[in-house]
């Protein structure tokens, strides 16, 4: 089979981007994999969607997709939001690749704000959409200075942010985009995933790629990379979650969304990972709110 056979929109190149651009992005990805956690600048292209809609992730996905891949997109864990549906259909049309909602069946998964609950494998690539790649940005606004801080490993400032959290709230209140130290070297923003997902970054068998379109940065974690969430000795990292089981599948170990049911205080906690929840229900698990 050739690339052309998959081409659903013959006016476009495979996966929308031209080959030179994909080559440029692949070089950035390889560099990112070679220096885990380091933000590699790349010449981000205009994409047929606005910034903030995952232009960075889409470009990375376009560069790594092959005709044989099976593609999955999640947004906050869900396969069925406008965002996820749009990006999935974008690649169905421009690459003609097969798509799926099953985590276990996907070879490339593009994600916004979550890591799937199911364990990933060496055969998979997880592509994160990143709004602001620089973990030091809100503490030090100068890009020239933050780059210097990275190159000299001056990360004291990162702990100042955590210190401020504890002094204000009594505990580290940062609950998403929680910074990690990669292989004892670069401090990295794991994109706005909940800190509940942070432990899944560490020693993950899959390749993890991070793309920031507006900020023009790509960074990466190769398989089995050590990734440690920053903390204090007397305030260790805590990947907390809501103290409820999933209302639909009864899972105790998954990250939950709170759904408001009415204006009388009725609410429902459900798995944010829709595929995980559906799999469990198919296996016969039932939560207290299951119909």
């Amino acid at each position, binding site marked *: 089979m050739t690339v052309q056979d998959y081409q659903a929109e013959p006016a476009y190149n495979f996966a929308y981007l031209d080959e030179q651009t994909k080559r440029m992005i692949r070089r950035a990805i390889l560099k990112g994999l070679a220096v885990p956690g380091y933000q590699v600048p790349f010449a981000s292209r205009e994409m047929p969607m606005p910034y903030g809609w995952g232009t960075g992730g889409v470009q990375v996905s376009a560069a790594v997709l092959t005709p044989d891949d099976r593609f999955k997109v999640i947004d906050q864990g869900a396969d069925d939001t406008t965002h996820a549906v749009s990006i999935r259909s974008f690649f169905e049309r421009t690459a003609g690749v097969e798509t799926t909602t099953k985590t276990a069946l996907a070879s490339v998964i593009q994600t916004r704000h979550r890591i799937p609950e199911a364990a990933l494998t060496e055969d998979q690539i997880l592509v994160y959409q990143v709004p602001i790649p620089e973990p030091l940005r809100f*503490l030090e606004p100068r890009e020239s200075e933050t780059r210097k801080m990275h190159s*000299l490993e*001056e990360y*004291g*400032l990162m*702990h*100042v942010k955590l*210190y*401020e959290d*504890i*002094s*204000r709230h009594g505990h580290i209140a940062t609950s998403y985009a929680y910074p990690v130290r990669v292989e004892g070297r670069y401090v990295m923003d794991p994109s706005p995933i909940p800190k509940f997902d942070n432990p899944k970054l560490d020693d993950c068998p899959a390749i993890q790629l991070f793309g920031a379109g507006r900020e023009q940065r790509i960074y990466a974690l190769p398989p089995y990379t050590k990734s440690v969430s920053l903390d*204090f*000795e*007397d*305030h260790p990292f805590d990947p907390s979650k809501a103290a409820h089981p999933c209302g639909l599948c009864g899972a105790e170990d998954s990250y939950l969304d709170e759904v408001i049911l009415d204006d009388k205080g009725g609410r429902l906690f459900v798995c944010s990972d829709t595929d995980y929840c559906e799999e469990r229900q198919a296996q016969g698990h039932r939560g207290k709110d299951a119909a």
Partner: protein
Amino acid sequence: MSDHPLLSVTGVTKRYGAHIGCADVSFDLYPGEVLGIVGESGSGKSTLLNCLAGHLAPDAGQVVFDTRGHGPRDTITMSEPERRMLGRTDWAFVHQHARDGLRMGVSAGGNVGERLMAVGARHYGDIRGKAADWLDRVEIDTDRIDDRPSTFSGGMQQRLQIARNLVTGPRLVFMDEPTGGLDVSVQARILDLLRGLVRDMGLSAIIVTHDLAVVRLLADRLMVMKSGHVVESGLTDQVLDDPQHGYTQLLVSSVLQV
């Protein structure tokens, strides 16, 4: 008193195009000594201070610092990471405007703690304890530890900046008009504080100011600068009471008496 200079400066020169910032400045600073640099605006004293502190690269000269680990090292030619490390450990810089030296969006405790965290402190309780101790030493109520410096008065901000700088026990403090822009009663309090800290911690300091009263109270030695050149140097009281150079005589006689 040690016989080895802590800082040995030779031939430091900085030009801005054809204009001279400072030219051929040399001096030794010994442990525990406070050196005042005076001169009118534009005399090159701030340029010199910035060259010494590694904020500006001089065109010529050496600034040799007696490092803890490796003995005397030229800080101009040492690598940037080493120089920045010095800036976080053995050196401190007190800016004239506290907001240049503080993080205005970070609490007082976080401001003081930053230098500790920068050198690897990772125990929240210890960091906070040290920050509280230092707030107390600079006479800031420890109840204010979680307040941002933007809610502090000018004098408090300056004292906070001093605490933030001294928490890691530096050996050399650069000060650029540390009491400039503060009213006189606040100035007196800060001078008193600095004097006590210099004595108790055995600090060496280089203070740039145009205020002769400040150097009389703080500095052991004085350098007088004019148009980028050092025109006179010596014991502070000797330079002020028996100035030898015409410019110094003019400077001293120009001070308003109260």
